[in-house]
C-alpha cells in the first residue's frame, strides 16, 4: 500500500517536472540544430551562438539589460537601508506606514505602473520626461516590496539596538556603527535580496517596452525583434539569457544556504 502511494507520488512529480522542463529543453535543442522537421532534429551546429555572440547589437543590448537592472537595485536597496536605519533605531512607529507604501506596488503591477508613469511625465519638460530616468524610477517601484521584505527580515534577525548602543558606549557614533557593524553583518541578506530583485528586472519586458520601447533596446526587446526574423537565433538568445539568470539565482541560493548554516553554527 505504502509502496503504491510512493510510486504514484513519484509519477506525479515526474510528470509535472517533465511538463516544466520540456519547453525549456526544446528551446535549447532548437538552438543547436539547423532543421527540425520530424521527431529528431538534424544538422548539429553551434553557428547560431557564434553569430549572436559576435553581434555587437546583441552584446550592447545585453549590457544595457545588466546596467538598467543593476542601477535601480542599488538605488532602491540603499534608500530602504536608510529608512530601516531610521525606523529600527529612532522611529519604530513609522515602519507600519513604510510597509503600506512598500506593498502598494502589488496592486499596480506591470502595465498599470507603466501607464501611471507615462501618462504623468511624458511630454513634461526637462529631466522628468527622460525615458531612462522614468525607467529607473519604475524599476525601483517594481522591486520595492521584495527588497523591503528581504532587507527587513535580514535586519530583524539582528539585535541592532544593543549592538549600536554598545558601539556608542565605546565612543562610536550611531551612524558609523550602523554602517561599519550592522551593514557588514547583513551582507549575505543584502546580496541575496539584491540578486532576487535583479533577476526580476532582468526578465522585465512590459515596463521597458511601454516606457522606453525601441529607444532603449534591452535584451528582452532585442529578443522580441529577433523572433520574427530567425527562430534559431531567438532560441540561442533565450538560452544565453536563461543561463545568465540561472547563474545569478544559483549564486543567490548558495549565499542564502551559507547564511543559514552560518546562523546555525552561531
Amino acid at each position, binding site marked *: 500500500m505504502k509502496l503504491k502511494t510512493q510510486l504514484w507520488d513519484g509519477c*506525479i512529480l515526474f510528470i509535472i517536472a517533465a511538463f516544466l522542463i*520540456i*519547453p525549456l529543453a526544446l528551446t535549447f535543442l532548437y538552438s543547436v540544430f539547423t532543421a527540425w522537421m520530424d521527431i529528431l532534429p538534424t544538422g548539429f551546429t553551434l553557428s547560431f551562438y557564434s553569430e549572436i555572440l559576435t553581434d555587437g547589437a546583441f552584446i550592447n543590448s545585453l549590457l544595457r539589460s545588466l546596467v538598467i537592472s543593476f542601477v535601480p537595485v542599488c538605488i532602491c536597496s540603499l534608500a530602504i537601508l536608510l529608512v530601516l536605519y531610521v525606523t529600527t533605531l529612532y522611529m519604530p512607529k513609522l515602519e507600519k506606514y513604510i510597509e503600506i507604501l512598500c506593498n502598494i506596488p502589488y496592486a499596480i503591477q506591470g502595465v498599470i505602473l507603466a*501607464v501611471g508613469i507615462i501618462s504623468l511625465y511624458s511630454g513634461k519638460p526637462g529631466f522628468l520626461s527622460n525615458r531612462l530616468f522614468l525607467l529607473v524610477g519604475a524599476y525601483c517601484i517594481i522591486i520595492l516590496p521584495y527588497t523591503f521584505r528581504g532587507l527587513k527580515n535580514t535586519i530583524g534577525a539582528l539585535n541592532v539596538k544593543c549592538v549600536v548602543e554598545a558601539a556608542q558606549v565605546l565612543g562610536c557614533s550611531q551612524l558609523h556603527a550602523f554602517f561599519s557593524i550592522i551593514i557588514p553583518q547583513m551582507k549575505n541578506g543584502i546580496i541575496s535580496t539584491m540578486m532576487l530583485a535583479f533577476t526580476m528586472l532582468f526578465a522585465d519586458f512590459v515596463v521597458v*517596452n*511601454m516606457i522606453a520601447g525601441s529607444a532603449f533596446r534591452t535584451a528582452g526587446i532585442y529578443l522580441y525583434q529577433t523572433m520574427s526574423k530567425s527562430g534559431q537565433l531567438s532560441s540561442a538568445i533565450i538560452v544565453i539569457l536563461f543561463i545568465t*539568470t540561472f547563474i545569478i539565482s544559483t549564486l543567490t541560493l548558495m549565499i542564502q544556504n551559507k547564511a543559514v548554516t552560518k546562523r546555525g553554527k552561531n
Partner: protein
Amino acid sequence: MKAKKNYKFYLFALLPFFIIVLLFEILPLINIVIESFSKTGGGGFTLDHFVKIFSTRLYQQSIYNSLWISIFSAVVGIFIAFIGAKAAHNASPKIRNTFTSVLNITSNFAGVPLAFAFMILLGNVGILTLIGKNYGIEFLANYDLYTINGLLLTYIYFQIPLGTLLMLPIFSGLRKEWKEAVGLLGGNSFHYWFKVAIPSLLPSILGTFSVLFANSLAAYGTAYALLSNNISLLPIRISQQFVGEVVQNQEFGCALSLVMMALMVISVLITNKLQKKSGGVQ
C-alpha cells in the same frame, strides 16, 4: 542642539525613499485616477471612458477574457500545485530537492521566452504540431496556439512553478496525528483529505490563488509576443492606448488601468473575506 541635528539627519535619511515613492508610485497612482475621469485631451470631468469600456463589445470582451484566463489558469495551477506539493511533501528529501530545483529554474521562464518556447512546440510549424501531422495525431496537428484557449496553456505553465513553490511550505502545517485520529474515528483517507486536511489548508490555498490570479491578470509578455495586439486582454488593450500604431488615447488607457486595478483589489478583498470565513489552522 544635538537632538535637532539628529532630527535633521533622520529626515535626510528618509528623503531618498520618499522621493522615489512619491514620484513613481503615489503621483502616478493619483494621476491614473484623475485622468480616468478627464475628457480626452485633458480637462473637465467625465464618466464617458467608463461608459465606453462597459458598453463597447471590444472592451467587454477584453475584461471577460482577462478574468476568464486568470481564473481558469489559477484554478488549474492551484490544482496541479496542490497534488505536486503533496507528492513532494511525501517524497524523500533527495527527490524533493530535485523537484524544488526544477521549480526554481522554471519559475524564471516566463514572458517572451516562454511564448517562443511554446511557438516552437505547438506553433504553426511547431515540433509537436509537425509530429501530429506526420503521424496523424489530430489533437496535436490541430492545436491552435494563437487563440485565447491556446494561450491558456502558456498561462497554466507559468502558474505551476509559482503555485507549487508557494504551496510546498503549507503542507508541513499538517500533523500526522490528525490522520491517525481520523483513522481511529473510523474515517478513511477521503474523510481525512476533504474533512480535515483541505479545510485546514484552505486559507493558504486561497492566498496562493489570489497571488496566481494577480500574476496572470498582469501578465503581458507572453500574450504580446504570441499575438501582439490581436487579442482582447486587458493589459494588451491598455498598452495599445500608449504605444503602437492605433490612435492613442491616454485618458482612456488610464480608465482601463483603473478597471484592472479594481479587479486586482476586488480579488484580494474576496480572498480576505473567504480566508476569515474559513478560519483554518492559523
